């Protein structure tokens, strides 16, 4: 048992519904996801001794709402990838003996904004002084800025970028829980309204309400749970910059690359070992950057790779098989849902099930290429 090989995901579940849930506060989405995940593991809340979630509403609030008294707490809040980092940190804590059974929760009223913290305009932080004055307005105006440079450097076409949304819709069509399931064509994507050139509406993620949670524990207990254990074989995390303008190279994500290298090395796998892949897709270009950062494609080749059908149903590398943030759901911090789909695939219970995958890799993004987390999950101890 080296690295994180001694740690498993024993419970994993999402909220009952996703989408538009004005009858759920942010906190209630955490609570519902948590209850579902603990039940999925066949445990009770009394079994939980560690808690991890992002800063709002925060681990103290979530633990208290559930009646949990933690002896280990992680409030890492670095955007949508935070939950991947929580898994990594929980694995370390479990190995160190600081916690035995960790609950990781996500809930976000991203669409309805019920019980959500208010958006505050920054004016004196580096972002507030050097980006906000130029009219940035959330991820659609910042996360998107690098792609024209990528298009010029590598010849990525508008049609290839649009195809990312087409490929993921093909997965979503197989998933009854996906928000958008109707097939779309490249022409449909390019005909949807421009949000921030070169991005059209269908190249931007959804904004939804929802949540989910995970129960992480020691692999010594792998046979104790109702569902097949999912092994945490390797993990990685990194960060680059809180300001998109300060990204070192607009054609690649350093944080994606470094987090991936760490996770693959720890799991002692290469790209050829990967049967199933989730890459956080807030926008259509992010899977392109992710495929290249993880080494699945050479620089500049991920656009054609997707457009050639390799990542869609029937392709050699099933990618974003729930439909992704573009078609399944995207509450704002999507990472939890990417992990959930990896777990479902390895358990053999996904809506669009891949044929008996052994290794699933999850790449999470936080902020605008600001942070990254990577998990290598396995059906076997490795």
């Amino acid at each position, binding site marked *: 048992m080296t690295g994180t090989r001694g740690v498993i995901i024993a419970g994993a579940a999402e909220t009952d519904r996703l989408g538009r849930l004005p009858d759920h506060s942010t906190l209630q989405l955490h609570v519902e996801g948590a209850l579902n995940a603990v039940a999925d593991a066949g445990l009770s809340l009394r079994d939980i001794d560690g808690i991890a979630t992002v800063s709002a509403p925060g681990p103290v609030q979530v633990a208290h709402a559930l009646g949990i008294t933690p002896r280990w707490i992680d409030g890492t809040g670095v955007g949508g990838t935070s939950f991947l980092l929580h898994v990594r940190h929980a694995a370390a804590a479990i190995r160190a003996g600081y916690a035995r059974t960790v609950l990781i929760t996500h809930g976000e009223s991203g669409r309805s904004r019920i019980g959500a913290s208010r958006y505050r305009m920054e004016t004196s932080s580096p972002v507030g*002084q050097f980006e906000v004055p130029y*009219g*940035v*307005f959330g991820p659609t*105006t910042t996360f998107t800025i690098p792609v024209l440079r990528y298009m*010029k450097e590598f010849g990525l076409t508008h049609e290839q970028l649009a195809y990312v949304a087409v490929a993921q819709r093909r997965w979503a069509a197989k998933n009854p829980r996906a928000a958008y399931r109707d097939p779309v064509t490249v022409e449909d994507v390019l005909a949807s309204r421009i949000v921030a050139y070169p991005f059209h509406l269908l190249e931007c993620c959804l904004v939804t309400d929802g949540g989910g949670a995970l129960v992480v524990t020691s692999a010594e207990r792998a046979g104790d749970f109702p569902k097949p254990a999912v092994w945490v074989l390797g993990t990685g995390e990194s960060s680059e910059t809180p300001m*998109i303008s300060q990204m070192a190279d607009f054609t690649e994500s350093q944080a994606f690359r470094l987090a991936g290298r760490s996770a693959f090395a720890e799991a002692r796998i290469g790209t050829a070992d990967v049967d199933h892949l989730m890459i956080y897709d807030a926008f259509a270009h992010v899977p392109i950057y992710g495929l290249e950062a993880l080494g699945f494609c050479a620089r500049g080749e991920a656009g054609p790779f997707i457009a050639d059908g390799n990542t869609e149903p029937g392709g050699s590398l099933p990618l974003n098989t729930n439909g992704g943030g573009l078609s399944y759901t995207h509450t704002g911090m999507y990472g939890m849902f990417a992990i959930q789909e990896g777990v479902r695939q390895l358990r053999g219970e996904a809506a669009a099930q891949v044929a008996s995958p052994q290794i699933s890799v999850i790449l999470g993004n936080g902020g605008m290429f600001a942070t990254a987390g990577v998990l290598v999950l396995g059906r076997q101890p490795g």
Partner: protein
Amino acid sequence: MTGKPVPVPTPETQPFWDGCAAGELRLQRCADCGRPYFYPRPVCPACGSRDVVWFTASGRATLYSYVINHRPAPGFEDDAPYAIAVVELDEGPRMMTSIVGLPATPEALELDMPLQVQFERRGDVSLPVFGPLAPAR
């Protein structure tokens, strides 16, 4: 009142904004390793030295990347669609900016085109923005 966000300087960035008010784009350079950098901070991000000095940059840059935003931020309703750009200064560092004096169209905004700093009054500060090298009269 434009309604657009006005940057609030901090002690570390005040010399930058003082420069803008004087019509100069001021950057910092490390006195130890020589690297110029942006955004302003009193430590060199390349080598960790605290021995950093301010200097006046040329104000020349090239267009590195951009988007044309169709969903305006609060205060920018009259400007949409407008370009949000990142420029590469001749000295090396990059910064976000607005493009002025050119239509916000892909045809008018060619990557790597040369640009020159200008300053736009915004509340109590002057904001660096970039326009064509030889502005049309």
